[in-house]
């Protein structure tokens, strides 16, 4: 494999994850990433793009997003207005066709990384509507009778928070990877990429406390990697002595965000 994904200076990927990315690229299949919030699903696409030196196109999916939005939009309203005021070029439909993110990735002169972020937020049928487009890497614009075909097959990375079950037909076409919550060892490595000069004692105490909070059954929203990083940042800036972290839980609001969870944590202290 000539284009091989490696961990970057900012993103630490496990062996397994790197293998998944490289297999997906080699087999020309979309890579579906699942995992707890805050395990760096979205960051992965950025890291892949950076590591391979490609541009990144991000398609953020929302609950109202339709598959069509990613392909193209025909701005009929604009055309209607223009028609009423007798603007020039109204008879040229192509002027009113706007490509979506998928279309943008297909039309790009260079190969790109396409991130379809949080695909499970959209309607249940959404992934099915994209099967043909992701398989064949082309779609057809009815209004102008034009086929948009990918000049260079984009590397497609799809993330999901498992809010909805994805359809079987869609899953069959994907390479799947589940990002596990990092263990202490990997977590240390991740924190150190953000703060190379972090003081060992502070890091150890903060991480112990962090995993301790995560292990509490009553804590509903388990804190994630990004929260630990924010917390260590805050602890460093404020210059909190390491031995006070577990006992006093300074800035615990950075890690625990819900009122009930705060109560629960204080209960254990």
């Amino acid at each position: 494999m000539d284009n091989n994904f490696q961990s970057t200076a900012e993103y630490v990927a496990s062996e397994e994850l790197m293998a998944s990315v490289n297999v997906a690229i080699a087999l020309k299949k979309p890579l579906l990433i699942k995992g707890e919030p805050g395990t760096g699903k979205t960051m992965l696409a950025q890291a892949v793009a950076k590591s391979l030196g490609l541009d990144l196109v991000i398609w953020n999916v929302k609950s109202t997003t339709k598959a069509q939005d990613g392909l193209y939009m025909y701005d009929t309203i604009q055309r209607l207005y223009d028609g009423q005021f007798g603007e020039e070029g109204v008879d040229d439909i192509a002027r009113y066709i706007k490509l979506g993110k998928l279309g943008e990735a297909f039309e790009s002169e260079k190969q790109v990384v396409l991130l379809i972020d949080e695909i499970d937020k959209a309607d249940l049928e959404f992934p099915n509507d994209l099967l043909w487009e992701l398989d064949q890497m082309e779609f057809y614009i009815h209004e102008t009778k034009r086929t948009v075909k990918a000049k260079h097959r984009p590397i497609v990375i799809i993330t999901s928070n498992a809010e909805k079950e994805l359809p079987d037909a869609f899953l069959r076409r994907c390479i799947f990877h589940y990002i596990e919550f990092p263990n202490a060892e990997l977590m240390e490595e991740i924190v150190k990429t953000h703060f190379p000069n972090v003081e060992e004692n502070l890091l150890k105490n903060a991480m112990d406390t962090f995993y301790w909070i995560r292990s509490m059954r009553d804590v509903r929203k388990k804190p994630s990697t990004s929260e630990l990083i924010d917390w260590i940042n805050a602890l460093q800036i404020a210059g909190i002595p390491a031995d006070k972290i577990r006992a006093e839980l300074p800035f615990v609001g950075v890690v625990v965000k819900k009122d009930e969870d705060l109560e629960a944590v204080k209960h254990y202290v």
Partner: protein
Amino acid sequence: MFLKFFFELRAKELNIGLSEWLTLIDALDQGLCGSNLTQFYYVSRMILVKSETDFDKFDTAFAEVFKEAQADEEVTYQMLRWLDKEELTELITKEDREIRQKQNSEDAPIDKEDVETKFKQRLKDQTEEHNGGSFWIGTTGTTAFGNSGNYVGGVRVGGASGYQSAFEVVGARKFKDFRDDRVLENRQFQMALRKLRQFSTRLEIPKTELDIDGTIDKTCQNGGYLQIEMQRPRKNAVKLLLLMDSGGTMIPYSTLVNELFQTVSKSNHFKDVKCYYFHNCIYSKLYKTPECENGDWVDTDWMFRNLGSDYKVIIVGDAAMAPEELYSLTGNYRGPNGGLSGYEWLGLLKSHYKKIIWMNPKMAPGQAPWREAETAIKKLLPMYKLTVRGLNEGMKKLMETR
């Protein structure tokens, strides 16, 4: 050998199609798996398995095909039955746990092979149930075998995992926690409950919403002059009645049931939600609070009269009553029976509410004839385990149209 792997996976209820299998062959052709088993494991898993909830099934199948059988003896069904004692974990106090942790750190390392050999020998010899002993495989004992025991670093056999002390957990695999038949959490509750939707625009309410597509259509047909269309908002027509057991045996599941209650009361997409509590079994009174205090109740008959048969009913309970609590006319030791046995009350409930399911957090897998009440209720009402899969199946049952 590889085809055997394919069929083994399908036998484990992994829904793998030919296209994925061909993808894997393609990956092998391209040399993506290298020549080592670990890499083959990861590559085949990422191609064939599409959900972390299935990793565990994959692991078992993989182990069966590619490794020699790990244990010579299987832990028999009979033995697992002896060890099925969830209540016992309640009895273990905090001090116990501290003592154990101390032991754990002080003890010399335990000889794994030695423990294994003895375990196999004992599996062969044991013929009866043991609890609290010091030699046989059983619960709350001091040997290295069984569960809920005091021995640090032995072999756990069945039962729920109270502590992390057993160094070898028979049959435990890394992704077991991700299986979708495990007990579920709040967010997953929400997702499952969202399945209870029955949108209706036929409700008798005024047309208050702007019909955007209709308006655009009409306006365009009107030559560009605006013409507004209105429509009735779509509303969920589902009404839900939640009946929850708050008896003593439900204490281990109180957090879980509390979370279900929180989710139901917070979800605002139902037309109506009603919650009542009962103690062990349903009789002539239903309590308004989980404390089940005398007087703070409604008549079950009142509920039948006032909550019509269009309510969908979810009963949450462990169905672990004593037989007389279920069948005797005086089986209710906390309140009135109302002239009927608990079983007859449940029958009434079933005949009144057409859509009714029982969610049981500790339902035994398969047939469990030694749980008499559970077996009887299972025959009467559709019962599901309170897990992601169970709740989803239950929701499907509630939404069935016939």
